[in-house]
């Protein structure tokens, strides 16, 4: 695969495992941070584990969060993994603080079962999703999370899974995507989802389509 991605390396945690996974898949990546900022020409992957507030604080250094927000609102494809997905939303209960606010909704704690949820759970693309079920097949992926996203728009839910009740396992809206699970630690199926996302966004990044795509992103951000 030739599409180069910008990998955000300020949020710590699973950066190493995502890098290794991209290496295995042959996906070239460029590390971006407040010293080496992305210009929006490449898809952005933001991995993050740990505390919602801590990840946001790391991102806020030198206004990096605002830059990422501007680029993503402008149409640059974005994939958030774990806390990288959670910070897409307006609010995180974990630290009682604001997220990037690119998707309407909040992040709340699981109320039942052992916390954190640790292990493999089956994800499925629900009928309500605006994404095509045939493009996003179901399967088992690895989760480690105590908190879970509650999108306001049910159509934004790409995958749902069951942990003492349905929860949002992934979101997708236009150029914005988020996986609550760890595709880089979910065997061949998890890697295939990462590949699928890269394929989807590399098509969308092509030539003339890019402009229309970016414009669409801006409209949606308002």
């Amino acid at each position: 695969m030739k599409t180069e991605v910008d990998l955000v390396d300020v949020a710590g945690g699973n950066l190493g495992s995502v890098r290794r996974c991209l290496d295995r898949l042959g996906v070239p990546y460029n590390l971006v941070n407040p010293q080496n900022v992305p210009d929006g020409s490449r898809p952005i992957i933001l991995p993050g584990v740990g505390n919602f507030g801590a990840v946001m604080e790391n991102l806020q250094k030198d206004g990096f969060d605002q830059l990422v927000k501007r680029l993503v609102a402008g149409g640059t494809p974005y994939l958030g993994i774990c806390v990288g997905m959670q910070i897409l939303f307006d609010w995180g209960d974990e630290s009682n603080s604001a997220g990037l606010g690119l998707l309407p909704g909040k992040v709340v704690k699981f109320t039942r079962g052992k916390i954190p949820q640790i292990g493999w759970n089956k994800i499925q693309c629900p009928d309500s999703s605006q994404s095509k079920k045939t493009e996003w097949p179901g399967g088992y992926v690895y989760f480690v999370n105590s908190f879970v996203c509650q999108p306001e728009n049910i159509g934004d839910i790409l995958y749902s899974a069951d942990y003492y009740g349905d929860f949002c396992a992934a979101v997708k809206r236009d150029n914005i995507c988020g996986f609550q699970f760890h595709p880089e630690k979910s065997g061949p199926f998890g890697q295939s989802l990462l590949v699928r996302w890269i394929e989807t966004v590399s098509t969308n990044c092509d030539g003339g389509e890019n402009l229309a795509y970016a414009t669409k992103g801006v409209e949606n951000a308002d």
Partner: protein
Amino acid sequence: MLTKRIIPCLDVRDGRTVKGVNFTNLRDMGCPVELGLMYESQGADELMFLDITASVEGRAAMLEFVERVADNLSIPFTVGGGVSSRGNVTELLNAGADKVSMNTAAVKRPELINEVSTQFGSQCCVVAIDARKKENGNDNLDNGGKIEWEVLIKGGRESVGLDALEWAEECVRRGAGEILLTSWNRDGMQTGFDIEMVKAFSERLPIPVIASGGAANPESFVEVFEKAGADAALAASIFHDKIYSIGDVKLAVKNAGISVRE
């Protein structure tokens, strides 16, 4: 629905895999990276690597080994054994381990759990507890004859007079993400998991419990999930000796109506 995890454990010394009976009499089982990949392809849900190296050179070799595992494996793995400081934890996580398991060091300095969970998150903070039934457990009048377990450290060689269940609860308060509970009475014996003990811990603790020690056959796993409510189960000998494959275990667990990853 969250599936029950089957975790092969590989004891590593000087780059080789070994497995002991009651923590001694080590037998050599082969290259741990190759074994790890084989288990991944068989459907293992996670792997556990236990470093039983004593020397400084061995510790450095372990970090290189962890990097090789991280480069090759696409499922999560935990590294434990001899983790004595926050520095050790940092090195192992940087080398690519998804989680680090702490045992003796956490007992000696419980603040280590707080430090690791605060700095790196609870998700990578496993506390391993080696527990043994207290000899007077059944007839201790002070507690109404309730069965109790005590914590052993230094690979089962030393008791520090700590109640295992109380210690596990303290670990949770300090930020542990999972408890790896090994029955010293059962370890290496292949007589089945300690159902009574695992059940007591699983019911009491709000975080996942990984049962370890005593797996004899696929039915041992069915039993520990069904009767003891374990979230995951770990075994070494029955897999390394090729008595059963991960697939054999998963099939039995699935046929018992328990959710596993297929």
